[in-house]
């Protein structure tokens, strides 16, 4: 199964592009990717959600985990491009403020 995300690195900066549906079936694989990313202690992580169509609370939890882990290691997380259903979920959970959406 092709997974709906990919990670690219540029020195200390990482870009994570997430597409399609980030849900209870796809979030576990993203979680593993995040674990691998976090141990490299990136100073900046850009999360691009323009291609993200649907998210559920498992997907939100994966993003929160990423956010906390990068911040705890002194890095910055920027989440951009959230729209439609994912944006509605972030707003409902009042995460839009924390995530700066």
């Amino acid at each position: 199964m092709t997974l709906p995300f990919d990670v690219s690195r540029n020195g200390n900066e990482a870009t994570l592009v997430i597409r399609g549906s980030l849900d209870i079936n796809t979030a576990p694989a993203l979680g593993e990717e995040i674990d691998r990313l976090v141990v490299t202690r990136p100073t900046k992580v850009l999360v691009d959600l323009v291609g993200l169509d649907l998210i559920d609370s498992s997907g939100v939890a994966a993003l929160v985990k990423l956010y906390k882990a990068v911040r705890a290691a002194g890095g910055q997380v920027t989440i951009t491009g959230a729209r439609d259903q994912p944006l509605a979920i972030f707003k409902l959970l009042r995460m839009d403020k924390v995530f700066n959406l």
Partner: protein
Amino acid sequence: MAPPIRLTLPGTLRYRAIAVRAVAEAARLVSGSTQRDPNDALAHDVRDPFDTAVVSAFMEIFNNVAIHAYSRDGEASTIELTITPDADQIMIEIKDHGVPFDIDGVAPLPEELDEYTLPEGGMGIHIAKTMLDEVVYEPGPPNLWRLRKHLSAPAQQLRNGSSK
């Protein structure tokens, strides 16, 4: 009035997309949103605020039934859906034969959110209740969820992101 739509499927995450897609199309019958915006190359399936609310809530309840009522790895029986798309509302009943639970014992989300209190779980029932007009759980067996969403003024609530 048309008879309701009935969908019975194994209560595991493997079958989740079938249920989610059926619910998304049923929501569209109520909201009147087209399946795709022909001017939008990305062709998002779920954009309309009513569809968004119904699909978001349903995904959470389906996940919970598959994970909590039926254990992720254990023996899962079926999930029985009854979907009633009317002119101005949708009703979805979700029946499972798994473990009942006490919905009143579910802890609410923290009031103040900052980067330290951001939750990594416990969001599902909150999402469902906030998105819909009615979320009723009757422990069984069979356990029954009754979800209802009216068509009137759903957009405003979503845009404000209020969590009534």
